């Protein structure tokens, strides 16, 4: 297993290791960004800088890549990430009503995080479970065949 970090900055150390492992890989930036986001939860400027120095890629280019892909976030996300599927199969089965209900219950809009940092909400395009439309995922959990009335009940599960 990996050695315990010496500098007390565990996450920075972890990222350094990732950068070293990928240094010689062709097209390493995106795999490194994926791993960095896993470590930090998001990609703040300091992390982008560290990657820029480690991989010898300009910060401008890294920023350009980070902002191009919707998977990458420069803002911290909530503990539970709600993704409401607005793919075609879900849309024709009333996914908009489900989205409205989440907005109403959480009092946030798409792309926002609740003030207690518990929930972030996003709309996504097809999670590949179209047979269960309309579909919502919360972290790794998939909820299918939803009606608007289910939303409250689902959220209650996460209110510990």
């Amino acid at each position, binding site marked *: 297993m990996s050695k315990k970090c010496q500098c007390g900055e565990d996450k920075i150390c972890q990222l350094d290791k990732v950068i070293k492992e990928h240094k010689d890989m062709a*097209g390493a930036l995106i*795999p490194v960004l994926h791993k960095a986001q896993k470590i930090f939860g998001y990609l703040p400027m300091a992390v982008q800088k560290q990657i820029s120095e480690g991989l010898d890629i300009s910060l401008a280019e890294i920023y350009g890549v980070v902002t*191009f*892909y919707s998977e990458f976030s420069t803002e911290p996300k909530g503990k539970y990430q709600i993704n409401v599927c607005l793919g*075609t*199969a879900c849309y024709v089965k009333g996914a908009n009503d489900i989205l409205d209900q989440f907005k109403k219950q959480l009092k946030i809009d798409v792309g926002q995080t609740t003030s207690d940092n518990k929930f972030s909400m996003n709309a996504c395009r*097809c999670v*590949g479970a*179209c*047979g269960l439309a309309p579909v919502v995922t919360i972290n790794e959990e998939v909820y299918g065949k939803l009606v608007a009335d289910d939303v409250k009940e689902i959220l209650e599960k996460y209110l510990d």
Partner: protein
Amino acid sequence: MHIYSSHVLVCSGTSCTSKKSPELIKKLEEGIKRKKLDEKIQVITTSCFGLCAEGPIVVVYPEGAIYSNVTLNDIDEIINEHLVKGRIVKRLLSGNNEGNNSYESADFFKKQVRIALRNCGVINPEIIEEYIAYDGYQALGKVLTTMTPEQVIDKVLDSGLRGRGGAGFPTGRKWLFAANAKGDKKYVCCNADEGDPGAFMDRSILEGDPHSIIEAMAIAAYGIGSDQGYIYVRAEYPIAVKRLNIAIDQAKELGLLGDKIFGTDFSFNLELRLGAGAFVCGEETALMTSIEGKRGEPRPRPPFPANKGLFQKPTILNNVETLSNIPIIILKGADWFKTIGTKKSPGTKVFAIGGKINNTGLVEIPMGTTLREVIYDIGGGIPNGKKFKAAQTGGPSGGCIPTEHLDVPIEYDTLIELGSMMGSGGLIIMDEDNCMVDIAKFFLEFSVDESCGKCPPCRIGTKRMYGILKRITEGKGEEGDIETLEELAETIQAAALCGLGKTSPNPVLSTLRYFRHEYEEHIVNKKCSAGVCKELLDYIIIPNDCMGCTKCIKVCPTKAITGKIKEPHIIDQEECIKCGACLEACPFGAIIRK
């Protein structure tokens, strides 16, 4: 080898996993052990049978009984009745399946021909030996030991296989271009980005039969003279990513990937690259730019990827479903393949049927099957006695096919003639409750979101079209809007840089072609007869249900509602601003939107 008398197959695809199939497996295994049947009965974790809406699915062989919507509470009954006493649990049987012969006889499966999905729901995708037992890696062995690269390409050319990723380009021709291209290094890429919202066949193949993709990529690499491959897969597909990683490791361990495969001089290495949520990266040049670690923007063609693709080297890119056809074509031959499907489009196509249809799920049909057969015979028709309105194929690049064309045989060219396209195989069924202007707006919004911004016709044009559609659905449509839409569509089609832009007007053009009256109704009469566009609906009080409680009168911000206590109230449509406050306030459900 141990022989079991019965097998219990449990699906572990995305849909069934989300409905707790892993817990079913655990309980089945424990129960079978407790009954001391574990010598005779084996529980197998498989992947998608295609019946996703009825999951979790459990299939018991040799009877081929398909049990659907199985819960933990049903497991004891399945064990005690079926596995111990041999009596099928009729209560749990799916659809019309009698459970007395193989599951292929169920209506859902009868018209299907499973080639690309041949191993899905049959083998355990995490065990390479199971793939090998079903002829896996035999095609690669045959190719490496008995065929020249030219013969491999000839065979694929001869089979007439066309790309299943959308455009239908002949696969053999693509390989031939790359084989003839000069270069010290060549790449083989697999497009597993599956961007069409509403399509999930590639996901199912990756989750259910990952080795078939690895094998096919190695065959392609041998054909064009490459030693390095990349699979570009969506990050949104965690189970697929996990199974691919397992499969690659297992193949390496057995010497089926890596150096000197099958003891020949052929070497091939494979890497996985994760997408990061950009639809345009499904486009071939954008995908390659993304693997290079850059913003996934498309590049102008020419140069074509066959000459200058990934890292500026000759490259081929194929879709997952295309590749899954390759091993079996090598083993069974081009002539066999051509007996299936039509002359111009041999083979099969997998469709993900969804939307307003009874049996949602994955189906694989011979090309040339009619839409009517897919919707009514396999799909079981439209639920709740509603009327079919249109089928959408091709996702944001495609179009809608109305009732009058239900008998058209499905193949690449016929769909294009109808103003739609095959696309990757999403087939969304819409009924009378879906508004076609709203659907066109939905797809345009998708294109606006996903336009990478590099070329102005797509970046600005789609936004303008979306703006007009939005206005129309809000009751602010004007005369001349339809003409402006058509004009914009023409410009974008002609001037956009890549396929995303060029095809983005299709949903509008095809709905205009078949449902122009709906646009006119929205613009001229300010009405949406499907009842979808909220701003175009009237709020009406049903006199018989209204108790005259005056609650609605109190909440109405424009004082549009009048009436005496204990007498039915009335909404003045001129004053109503359609805020919906009255509908929420009414305790008797007497207010409706129409």
